[in-house]
């Protein structure tokens, strides 16, 4: 009973938030609605008993990804209204067809695959975090390490791409040096 109430409540909230994200013209509205939607999505993970996944969802998405987007938006002009392309009827038709096909496939998928057996069943008497740790560090150790390397590469790439001229620290420079560097920047921009 409570599960049903929670499910419908969070389903409606998530759908509304993500619809706002997709449909709004203000970039800040989209960002905040997306952050709220991410937190509501983590509620489903808690309902489903995947506690660790829910915590990771909150930490990674609303902690890291949203903060990154917020920093990124400081570089862009977010007060300007976002212009959208005029939706041609062809795109809308193709989109609706695709969505309908997806719906049918997802409805029929559990019926087709009713004889699924679990490869790594949930361990009796262990909490979700414990069983996740057991499976992650035995069966999925190599993908786990590869994901770590991938995150490291992504971090280096992000720093290299976004952090140009990071070798100069404004706090350690004298006033004249800062003024000189600003003049030099103006010349580059002009």
């Amino acid at each position, binding site marked *: 009973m409570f599960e*049903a109430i929670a*499910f419908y409540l969070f389903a409606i909230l*998530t*759908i509304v938030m*993500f619809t706002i*994200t*997709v449909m709004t013209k203000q*970039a800040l509205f*989209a*960002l905040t609605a*997306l952050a709220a*939607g991410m937190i509501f*999505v983590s509620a*489903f993970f808690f309902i*489903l008993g*995947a506690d660790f*996944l829910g915590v990771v969802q909150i930490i990674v*998405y609303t902690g*890291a*990804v949203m903060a*990154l*987007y917020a920093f*990124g*938006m400081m*570089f*862009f002009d977010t007060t300007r209204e*976002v*212009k*959208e*392309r005029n*939706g041609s009827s062809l*795109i809308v038709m193709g*989109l609706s067809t695709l*969505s309908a096909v*997806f*719906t049918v496939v*997802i*409805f029929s*998928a*559990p019926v087709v695959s009713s004889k*699924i057996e*679990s*490869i*790594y069943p*949930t361990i009796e008497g262990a909490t979700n975090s414990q*069983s*996740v740790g057991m499976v*992650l560090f035995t069966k*999925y150790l190599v*993908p786990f390490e590869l*994901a770590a390397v*991938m*995150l490291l*590469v*992504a*971090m280096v*790439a*992000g720093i290299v*791409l*976004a952090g140009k001229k990071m070798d100069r620290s404004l706090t350690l420079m004298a006033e004249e040096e800062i003024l000189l560097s600003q003049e030099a920047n103006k010349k580059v921009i002009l």
Partner: protein
Amino acid sequence: MEIGLTHYLVLATILFSIGLIGVMRRKNLLMLFFATEILLNAVNIGFAAISHYYNDLTGQMFAFFIIAVAASEVAVGLGLLIVWHKRTGNINLDTMSSMRG
């Protein structure tokens, strides 16, 4: 009223369709990134639901790796976006036609 696997899969479908609509109608590249985040989250819900109803932890593992992929995608994508914005001054998708695609 019992909440079954189908409920979650239908919800994941709806969210995936919302993300798909976002990918189709957005012209601003930052908004396009938001829509891809919605797509990844919808798939994550489906994975977690199947993991719960089939008593299998594989779905949760895949959800973890999807989250890792999403995080690195955001880092690299935003870096590229900032470089592009510094060079051209806008992040409009229609102006990115230097390869005559």
